[in-house]
Every structure is written in C-alpha cells, then in structure tokens.
C-alpha cells in the first residue's frame, strides 16, 4: 500500500473467516479524502462485515486496515473512534433511556475530553452541550432533544444516529443503510443532511444502501460486493452498466 497518496481509508487483502466460512475474501479498496463511496451488493454479500472490520467491531483473519496512512488493524474500537473514524449501525444502536440530547452530548464530551471526570457537571452551559444542541439542529431533531432515544420514531432514530456521529467530529464516516425503514417522504431530507456533512465538514463517507436512487444521487464512486468479494469499484454509470452487477444485484425490475 502506498502511503504517499495517503487515502483517508484503505483496506488491503482484508479477509474474515468464521469457523471455515469465508465471510470476506481479500478485499482491497482505497477511499480518497473527502470522497463519498457507495457500497452495494446483495444481502449477505459482506457489506456490514466490511464496516465491522474497518471500525474494529470485528478483527480480520487476514489483511490490513489503513486509516489516514496509519495501520489500525489491531486497534480497539474506541481508539479508532477517537482517531476520527465514526460509524452508524444497520439497526439503530443508541442509549435508549437517555435523552436524545444526552446521547449526542456524551459523544461530544468524549471529543472535548474530560468525559470521565468526576469533577465536572455536564451542565447545559458547557461547550459539549452547546455542540450537542447544534448537532441536533443540524439533523432537525431540536424539538426532540428531551425525548428518550428509545421513544423516538424509527426515522428519528436514524437521524439521531447521524447526530451522534457528527458530534464525534469524524473525518471518515461509515453509514450502514441510513435510509432503511425511513418513510419515503423523509428520504430526500436525510440525503440532504448527509450531503451537507460531506460538503461542509469535508468528511470522507462510505455508505451501504439498497435505495439506489439515494446512492446514485450522492456518491462519487460505487463499490460492489458479492460473496464476500469486491466485484467492482467505479463511477456509478460504469457500475450500473456492468452485466454482473445487474445479474447479481439488480435483477430484472419488478
């Protein structure tokens, strides 16, 4: 892997085997700074697994993960997160009994430091809280700041996940099906948020999504996965025209 070009994120020969089953085989991929990459592929292709390996939730059985020129393959989740690698989950993963604001503020506090301090109150006037409120406003959840995260509607939970993610000020973010289960009426709005983050914060974004309109409308390149392997990685036009992609993923239209 040439570090000179220093892509924001790169994986090289990444593999995962669980008890004989090859979940991911020899995936090599580079994502440039401030690039937005779509990841598509049939169910069970290994997209979520790829994210789990990159974020450290799973350890690969082979290969390397490079994050901003650094080999992070052996680093625990929280170190990568602190280094600026953020992610969301396919099924929302929040603190259900804490308020929406608190969910975001905890993330902000960790960024500002002193999250473990017993000497500091998380009062409403401090920088972390201000920051958290801004993030909530950004995804349009200000009016739900006080609601327990578990009581939010499905779509709001997806938005809250993104707010939490933003509060850690990541340089690379991994979005796992952000639109799944969001009402079709809300999809454009959420796409807008993602686009803004990408543009304004200059984040590198990797996004798994089955919603093809969203993917094609947002991303610079599309990576296609199938049977744990990377089939192709190119511009949307090229990828969509690919026969294999059509037969393995898109199928005939309904």
């Amino acid at each position, binding site marked *: 892997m040439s570090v000179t070009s220093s892509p924001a994120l790169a994986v090289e020969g990444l593999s995962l085997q669980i008890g004989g089953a090859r979940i991911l085989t020899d995936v090599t991929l580079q994502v440039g700074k401030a690039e937005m990459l779509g990841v598509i592929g049939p169910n069970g292709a290994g997209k979520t697994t790829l994210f789990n390996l990159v974020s450290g939730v799973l350890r690969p059985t082979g290969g390397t993960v490079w994050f901003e020129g650094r080999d992070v393959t052996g680093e625990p989740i929280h170190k990568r997160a602190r280094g600026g690698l953020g992610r969301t989950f396919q099924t929302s993963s929040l603190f*259900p009994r804490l308020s929406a604001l*608190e969910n975001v503020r905890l993330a902000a506090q960790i960024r500002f430091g002193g999250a*473990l*301090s017993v000497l500091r*109150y*998380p009062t409403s006037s401090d920088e972390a809280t201000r920051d958290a409120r801004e993030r909530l406003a950004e995804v349009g959840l200000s009016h739900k700041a006080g609601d327990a995260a578990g009581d939010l509607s499905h779509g709001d939970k997806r938005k809250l996940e993104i707010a939490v993610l933003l509060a850690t000020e990541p340089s690379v973010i991994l979005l796992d099906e952000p639109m799944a289960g969001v009402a079709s009426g809300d999809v454009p709005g959420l796409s807008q948020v993602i686009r803004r983050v990408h543009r304004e914060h200059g984040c590198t974004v990797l996004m798994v999504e089955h919603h093809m309109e969203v993917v094609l409308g947002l991303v610079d390149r599309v990576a296609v996965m199938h049977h744990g392997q990377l089939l192709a990685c190119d511009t949307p036009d090229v990828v969509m025209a690919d026969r294999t992609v059509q037969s393995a993923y898109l199928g005939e239209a309904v």
Partner: protein
Amino acid sequence: MVRDAEHGAQSPVRRESEQSPAASPGGDGGRAAPSARTLTTWVAGAALVVLLAVLPLLNLSLPGILPGPTYTPGALQVLAFALLTAALALSYHLLFGVSGLLSFGHALYFAAGAYGLAILLDRAQMGLLPAIGVTLVIGLVLAALTGAVSLRVTGISFAMVTLAFAQAGSVIVRRNPDRLTGGEEGLALNTDRLPELLVGVVNTKYLYWVALVVLLLVYAVVAWIEHSRAGHLMAATRENELRVRVIGQRPYVIKLIAFVVAGVLATVVGMANLLLQSGAVPRAISTDFTLTLLVMVVLGGVGSRWGAIVGGVLYTLLDQRLNALASSAWIEELPSVLRIPLSEPLFLLGTLFILVVLFLPGGIAGAVGRVDARNRRRTGKADPRTLLEEVV
C-alpha cells in the same frame, strides 16, 4: 457482539423489557423537573437531615418500629444500623443501579473495612485515624485488583467471578489464618485506642452520628458521581456498551471506576459498622449478605438513590422488628397453617420481596414515582422526560 448491535432491538417485547428493570426515567426524581420542584426536594431533604441529626435529643416513640424512644441507646443502635445499611445499599446502587453491574461479591469490600480496621487496631496497635487510612487503602487496592479481573467478563459470568472472589474471602476469614480473623466467632473491637466518646452504650448517640455522617458522605459521593460526566458515562455503558466504544470510550475503564468507588464506599461503611457493632463477624462476607443488599436495592427501587436508602432502612427495620412480630402472642394462638409461616421473620421478608418484584416494578421509588407522575399529569405539569438534563 455484532449480533447484539444488529438484532438486539428487533422484538417489541424485548424493547419493553429493557425499559423495565433499571432506572425508569421517573427514578431520577426532581432532577429534570422545574426548579420549584427541585427546591422543594432540597428543602425536604435538608429538613430530613436535620431531623435525623437531632433525633438523639428528642423523645419520639415509634412503637412497633423502634424498641424505645429515640433518645434511648437501643433505638439509636437500631437506627444507626439502619443508616449504615442504607449507606451500604447506596454504594451497591452505584454498582447495580447506575452502572448495571450485577455483583454477588460486594460484601467483600464491606468485610475488608470491618476486618481490616479491627485487625489493624488490635494487632498493629495503630491509632484510629492511621488505621482508618490504611484500611481505606486496603479496600481501594482490593477493589481495584478484583475489579480489574472480574470486569474482563460480563453478565452472569461477572456475577460469578465476583461471587468467587467473595467466597474466597469468606473461606479465608472462616479459616482463621494465624488466628487473625477469629473464624466463626469473628473479631471483637479493641477499644483501647478509641476515643472515649465511641465506647459504651451511653455514648451510642455519637456512634449514631457517625453512622449519619457516613450515610451523608456516601450519599454525597454517589450523587456527585451520578451527576458527573463519569456518572453519565456509567449510565450510558449500562445501556449500550458497543455504542460507548463507537463514540470513543472504553467501557472497561468506566466500569472499573464505578466498581472501585463502590468498593471503597463499602469499606468506609464496613469500618463504621465495626465501631457500631464493636466487632466483625463472618456473616459480613457471605454471599447471603450481598444478596441481602440486592434485595434492599430492589425493594427500594433499582436506579433510584433514595430508593436504595429507603430499601436499606426498611429492610433493616423489618429484619430487626419482624422477630418481635413473629413472637407476639396473637400469632402463637393461630392455627399452625398460619402460625408457622407467620412466626418466621424471613418468610415474611422473602414473601414481601417477591410481591414487590411481581407487583411493584421499580420498587417503592417506582411506585411513588408513578403516583407522583399521575398527580402531576392531573395538575397539568410537564412530565420530566428530559432525563439527565439541566442538573442542579
């Protein structure tokens, strides 16, 4: 772990169940409430503390609850014991209620306080203050070491490893190595180096005040931690460890802090208990004792500080006074189907506990919280859902 993250919240029933056991939003009381309510809570709390402080000077009788008027040593002894038990329950609350750590070995640190101080006073012939200092360090080191090991696993495994450590402690104490711990018989307090005021029944009121101070101290520490950033992270860790990792924090460290603080607080209570009871007994390190703490916290209401206190006090008073009930004359006259169960205090206590778990989810605090919430809804005030918001 991936499985949890991806599929944990799939079934609606599951989601419901996650909400019920630990801190219900109402459990955090007036914290998030309008400031008028906060003020009322503060005033009521302060008044209660003052009342407790002057109790030894008053002549109040609570027949059936206390053995005599409040100024008598007998009543003060029972009250002081109840306060210390409440303090211990409060330290357990930090573990279980706040951080969601189900430990079966919390008695170990309590016993470390009681036995440690007793041994230092007697064998090492230390003065009271240095002995207290050294015992605190012992408690700290013990909690840090055992916590560091047991927190490497979670759930029932964690409960079992803590149980194992406490059990090892219990075996050692009962084995009486070097005649250090007194085995079954326990240790008597060597009063030579104690200030006069802490010795003798006539001075029970001073021991009572010590107990009260210990309770207030433990309360202050627990409340402080709960409100602090670390406390919020503890609650967050209890809710979703993976999420904590992903925002860049190690749950292990957070849990270890909770474990060690709770352990040291238990050590403090253990020392006070040694002074109050003039001795240490092996029951203090038994698993039963930890289970008793669990019972108290659940009785009072998991996740609620004052619930832990109420649970501790209630349990102690019931435990002490149900004997009196059980041996009362009217029970002796009942037919044996009723008499046998009713004359066993532990049967009554166990049954009460079962009923609370079944019918009062959230314990006493939960029940009060619900009534409170209903009243507030009726009077049109907002439901303080803003958990952990706008503290103090």
